[in-house]
């Protein structure tokens, strides 16, 4: 993608294109990676509700895997996950290990 010149920009740095945040893939910020353990998941969707981004993908009415292109690894989903019988359905692992 070629970068625009200064005289091609909108004054005030106003973004006129709706939904353009999709182009800004923030997954590279991640230091910790949430991992979904489907066997411990009760489909409560707390992770989907709590995610400050939109990084919990849905498959119909059910939770699917993480969207790692946007997940910043904040860990809120892992903290809130009630899991099953004391076993979390989301655990954080160090990125790149």
């Amino acid at each position, binding site marked *: 993608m070629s970068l*625009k010149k200064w005289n091609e920009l909108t004054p005030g740095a*106003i973004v006129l*294109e709706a939904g353009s945040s999709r182009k800004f893939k923030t997954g590279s910020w991640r230091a910790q990676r949430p991992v979904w353990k489907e066997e411990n998941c009760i489909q409560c969707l707390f992770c989907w509700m709590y995610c400050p981004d939109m990084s919990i993908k849905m498959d119909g009415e059910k939770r699917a895997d993480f969207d790692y292109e946007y997940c910043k690894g904040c860990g809120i989903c892992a903290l809130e996950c009630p899991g099953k019988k004391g076993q979390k359905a989301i655990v954080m692992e160090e990125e790149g290990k």
Partner: protein
Amino acid sequence: MAKVAVTGNSAVANALRQVNPDVCAAYPITPATDLMQQFSSYVSDGKVDTELVLVESEHSAMSACIGAAAGGGRVSTATSSQGLALMWEMLHIASGMSLPIIMPVVNRALSAPLNIHGDHSDAMYSRDTGWIQLWSENAQEAYDNTIMAYRIAEHKDIRLPIMVNMDGFIISHSIETMEYLEDDKVKNFVGKFERVNPLLDLENPKSFGPLILTDYYHEYKRLQHEIMGRVKGVVNSVTDEYAKLSGRQYGLFDSYRLEDAEVGIVVLGSAAGTTKDVIDEYRDKGIKAGLLRPRLFRPFPFGEVADALKHLKAVAVLDRADSFGSYGPVFMEISSALYQAGGQPKMINKIYGLGGRDYMPSQAAEVIEELNDIAQGGAIKLVKDYLGVRG
């Protein structure tokens, strides 16, 4: 046009009434309190349709103005001194987001020590915030500048916030005889507010204030510089159009007996009036003195100012604000302008009138005497010195 005897604050409050902005968010601070208090009476009495937002601080006042302006409204506020200081981070956001907010600033000293009186420290500290700055010599000009400010700031090629400066108490609280334009003339002159990229246009969603990092920030700042470069031309055309309406012709700066002068004083605001009187006295004695009073300070019209001053033998720049460890802010501009123009004048800088200390005709006389001595070949003793200070 009716002649009235009013204070600067009353005059500017009346200008705001005549413009009838969509939103004002303000917080009281001496000496600007009285201005917004009078405007709030217009709101209470139903003389304007303005949504007046009474906020909990000046930081909030500017934040609310930014929100309202981004939303698509014509927006004004007013402040002074510590209030302007508290707005500081939001001032950059208003200009960076290209929001034409109109803000009279009733200039006052900054703490500490605490002082409520007039000097230019508040506006000078904000000169690099990306706001346009107009400066006024008296209540008439403060009123005229406020009306013109809407046309300048809201011009389609500019869309930037603007400060209209006037000296605290000397202009804001002193009664002067001046003229108001009729309400319909002001209304027609400022025209209908044209929205540019309003946030509340729900059919065309957009984002304000995005994160812009190393790949684009530099380009956006270069663009801001470009837009500032257009201001001078717009100020000239709006000023000339206003002159036809009002009979009062202003310029980028006010030039007084400068064309054939040998020595000159550069000074902002109300001190120019006193200085002009003293210049007349010295002209009668055969000393060719003149004056330049900047009106547009940001962007600074370097070329025009240098052309008006470069024939002089000696120039004194009077600053009602200081930059500790450097020269006064106006001196720095004039020095830069003259150096780039290859100007020859010897230059001195006098800091005067801090914290509302009276600027007396005897101080102007002292400066003209010193300039005359330098023009005759005398040595400059101190480039930067203080006028009217004990010790």
